[in-house]
């Protein structure tokens, strides 16, 4: 009887341990969703700002994938962002646009997609049209422009 109760306790222990691991996998980290099948789409940007790998890719605030890698295009020195998009969102038109946006004023940066109107859909390895991408807005550049425009205006406002 004694060995039996020991075995039961060890069984409970193992189950609790595995349950904790499952909780960490499903509820705490991203193993539950998003790590399924994805297809890769590239987009060229002049400047990616503070975009990180694994940053979310969103359409209208809904996450559809994540940034898989950021590299430099050797020909024109622009940044190339590779995005891994879930295969269940495989009906993105080829004239989809992309912009690097910021969550809140100082939050993390992410890629926002604006679906276009074409009937042909993006597939694995496709590039977004370069004219439809919008680089990250850099706060310091913006402040610089604001300051210089203040300086050019009538001196009374600058004070």
């Amino acid at each position, binding site marked *: 009887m004694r*060995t039996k109760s*020991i*075995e039961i*306790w*060890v069984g*409970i*222990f*193992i189950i*609790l*341990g*595995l*349950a*904790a*691991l499952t*909780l*960490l*996998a499903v*509820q*705490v*980290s*991203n*193993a*539950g*969703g998003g*790590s399924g099948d994805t297809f890769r789409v590239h987009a060229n940007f002049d400047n990616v700002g503070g975009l990180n790998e*694994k940053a*979310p890719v969103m359409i209208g605030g809904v*996450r559809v994938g994540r940034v898989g890698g950021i590299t430099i295009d050797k020909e024109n020195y622009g940044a190339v962002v590779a995005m891994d998009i879930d295969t269940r969102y495989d009906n993105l038109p080829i004239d989809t646009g992309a912009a690097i946006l910021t969550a809140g004023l100082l939050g993390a940066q992410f890629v926002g997609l604006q679906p276009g109107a074409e009937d042909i859909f993006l597939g694995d390895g496709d590039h977004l049209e370069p004219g439809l991408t919008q680089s990250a807005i850099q706060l310091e550049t913006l402040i610089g422009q604001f300051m210089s425009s203040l300086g050019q205006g009538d001196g009374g406002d600058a004070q």
Partner: protein
Amino acid sequence: MKLLAGLGAWAIAFVARLGASFLFLLRALSGAARALPRFSLVIEQLYAIGVLTMLIIIVSGLFVGMVLGLQGYYQLVNFSAESSLGLMVALFLVRELGPVLGALLFAGRAGSALTAEIGLMKATEQLAAMEMMAVDPMARVIGPRFIAGLIALPLLAAMLSAVGVLGGYLIGHGQFGVDAGVYWSSMQNGVDWVDDVLNGVIKSVVFGFVITWVALFEGYDAPPTAEGVSRATTRTVVTSSLAVLGGDYILTALMFGGL
């Protein structure tokens, strides 16, 4: 001259002990391999090492998570970044506190017990008696404990992290009213299964290995006296805690240092 000789003697004794512990490790590993077919022995040890440590791990995990929730909220609310509370609590627990605090508690609760048990077995000549009966103590006594330590600590560390995250939720959501969806989603967006969770599990496997090794060696190597066993138990806790903290720095640098 006397000082020099003392230093030399200390160094020689230290290196000899290091070598002895390594030889012991090899024998313990071969013992573990031979103990594996008799898994009921391992289950017995899993009860002593794992199940009996579970309570302290769960209770401390809950409190650590609650403290993280409190302190994290007090600081983050200054930057109105309390929406990142879940992410902060989870990363702290999964990357560091789960494996390290779990290992320290494990060293204190299970490691010391292992050393005292083996040391007393040696002092009362039970190990010698086993050898007389042609039973290899490495396979019968040391091996099952080694396997049990390796299995138990990763599970305990995962429990500590999971309970801690729930504790942080209890404080963050229950007391401060951080939105439940924000708490969990910031976590899911920021915590990576491989980079964070699995690396934490790898850490705790390494710590389980080190602690069990130190505890078993100290017990096996203890002078067969009451004082010897008591000193060996103290040394187990001190050595394995230091090894865990030092090893944690090295593992963190390797895992999260961009390699």
